[in-house]
């Protein structure tokens, strides 16, 4: 789960990480008031759940109230990578001596929370990692001890040089780690972390993502969720025990299992078609799940044909067939459907489907070819 920058800043403050003052605004007049109240140079920042806001013109510096108003007029309502800007953050634009990067992630290889820090902050850290990986300090945190004082201090010293400043940095690293672990985060970045002319260390921008599997024990984080339209569909699918991602193609896919669902999309593409979605109906095969899945698939008006690909392991193909027959009793559609059943009880399933006139095949590649053919009719 992703949250906005303004929400990350709220969490930073809660954990004692210093962040400049800011106000969240939905309208130009709110921005005008916020700029007047802050009464100094501000930065107006689009709040959208996507990276690259600065490059897209979604972040503007304003020297006075008039500047802030004109920035707000430009930014509010603009489109950034398909996301409409509905709110902006008006934040105190502090003076900056130098920009740094600090981030925490879960490292798959060492199976630890790993701290990354760099004196090349502000820019895209992925680019730094690619071009000059030696400029990134990486530290794998022992989960039994957490990030210890001397470890945080050592990393901060490498970054800031001066011990007095490093102590401020180390304090931020430790607080960020505490926030990360306590909220089941999967990313916590401060970019940039800045040094001011007064030798203060501040978090100017923040990004946090959270572990979907842990949301059940993070009610405060869950309450911050602001899903967009696509995500609402995905969350609705999740609540029904399905996993759905909408794509741009025209061949709807319904598959049991995530790996097989991805392989199905790949095969459609390999044979010259375009998958309309990723849809994993999971292990169970209750008729209701098949009905829900069909409803979600057919909501996408780009869909011209549907490929159902089931490999029965624990899922029994005859159960899926029964679900499909029930689904087609309640859903009326003229979108052609091709069904592939294989594995446990496939013969029984295919026999049941004879009453529906649906084309059935026994291999995945035949099904993909047929679905592509049907999408072009």
């Amino acid at each position, binding site marked *: 789960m992703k949250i906005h920058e303004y929400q990350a800043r709220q969490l930073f403050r809660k954990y004692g990480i210093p962040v400049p003052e800011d106000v969240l605004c939905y309208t130009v007049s709110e921005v005008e008031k916020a700029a007047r109240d802050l009464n100094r140079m501000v930065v107006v920042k689009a709040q959208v759940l996507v990276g690259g806001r600065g490059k897209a013109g979604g972040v503007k510096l304003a020297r006075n109230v008039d500047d802030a108003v004109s920035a707000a007029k430009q930014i509010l309502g603009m489109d950034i990578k398909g996301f409409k800007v509905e709110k902006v953050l008006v934040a105190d634009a502090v003076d900056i001596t130098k920009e740094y990067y600090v981030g925490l992630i879960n490292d798959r290889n060492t199976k630890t929370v790993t701290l990354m820090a760099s004196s090349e902050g502000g820019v895209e850290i992925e680019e730094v990692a690619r071009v000059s990986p030696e400029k990134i300090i990486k530290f794998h945190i022992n989960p039994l001890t957490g990030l210890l004082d001397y470890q945080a201090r050592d990393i901060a010293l490498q970054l800031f040089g001066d011990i007095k400043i490093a102590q401020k940095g180390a304090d931020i690293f430790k607080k960020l780690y505490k926030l990360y672990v306590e909220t089941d985060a999967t990313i916590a970045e401060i970019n940039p972390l800045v040094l001011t002319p007064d030798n203060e260390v501040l978090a100017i921008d923040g990004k946090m993502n959270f572990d979907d599997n842990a949301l059940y024990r993070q009610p405060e984080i869950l309450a911050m969720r602001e899903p967009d339209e696509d995500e609402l569909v995905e969350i609705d699918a999740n609540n029904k025990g399905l996993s759905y991602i909408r794509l741009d193609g025209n061949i709807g896919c319904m598959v049991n299992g*995530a*790996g097989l669902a*991805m392989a199905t999309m790949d095969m*459609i593409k390999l044979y010259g078609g375009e998958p309309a979605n990723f849809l994993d109906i999971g292990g169970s095969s209750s008729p209701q799940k098949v009905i829900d899945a069909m409803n979600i698939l057919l909501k996408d008006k780009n869909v011209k044909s549907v490929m159902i690909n089931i*490999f029965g392991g624990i899922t029994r193909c005859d159960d899926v067939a029964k679900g499909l027959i029930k689904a087609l009793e309640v859903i009326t559609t003229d979108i052609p459907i091709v069904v592939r059943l294989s594995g446990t009880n496939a013969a029984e399933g295919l026999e049941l489907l004879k009453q529906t006139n649906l084309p059935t095949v026994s*291999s*995945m590649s035949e099904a993909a070819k047929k679905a592509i053919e049907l999408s072009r009719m």
Partner: protein
Amino acid sequence: MSILVNKNTKLVIQGITGRDGKFHTGKMKEYGTNVVAGVSPGKEGLVLDGIPVFNTVAAAVKATGANTSIIFVPAAFAADAILEASEAGIELVVAISEGLPIQDMIRVTPFLKQNGTLLIGPNCPGIITPDEALIGILPGNIFKKGNIGFISRSGTLTYEVVNLLTENDFGQTTCVGIGGDPIAGLYFIDLLERFENDPETIAVVVIGEIGGDAEEQAAQFIAEKMTKPVVAFIAGQTAPPGKRMGHAGAIISSGSGTAAEKIAAFNKAGVPVAKEPNEIPVLLRELLKK
């Protein structure tokens, strides 16, 4: 021979009285797995399907000599179940439970290391040595004894490919589903090493997917350390960045973890990558002719 599980495996089932636990216990027993005990706190004394149930894993181990455990308990309690098995002296833990918080797995890891416990999963379909032991939720009927080692990050895609192998007369030594989570137990390299050392295995099939860089590391390991041929397949070539494809680990983030990068790494290591599942037995046949 085989790897990790065989006729000598003595299995204890954690969560044996739950719906999934009960169902799959029956399936595993039917397949011929030596299921010696079940664990369900508060149900000690019960005998299910001829299997004695204990309150704790330690008691089950003491009474039956169990050396392997399988976990079916709900995600919120699964990390605790893994630790309980490890502390009780279980050598191999297979965690089927899905939806475990990542921080739970990070906290579990150092304890497993300290106790020398091996883990497969979580969120995995399990492991099978055909005709000897099935430990998981895999459909036993599609597997066949033979000489191919098999490692996969996915469940049903495993069944799809194994079925193709069996149909083409490529039986398997051992098949391992390592699971779709970003932080998991035994992974590609740990298993490739075991297959390389297993005299009966003559070739290995690796099924990877988008997310992480374990496939790239596996490719490097194969190039440097393996003498046996390997065929690979990568799922998720059409997956868009930033979208999690069902598995918690299957996500392309910051432009890395793409299928294209993984395929390139395998090709560089001299490992042929199938364009579609059908091609896997074809590539295997070509490699084994040489």
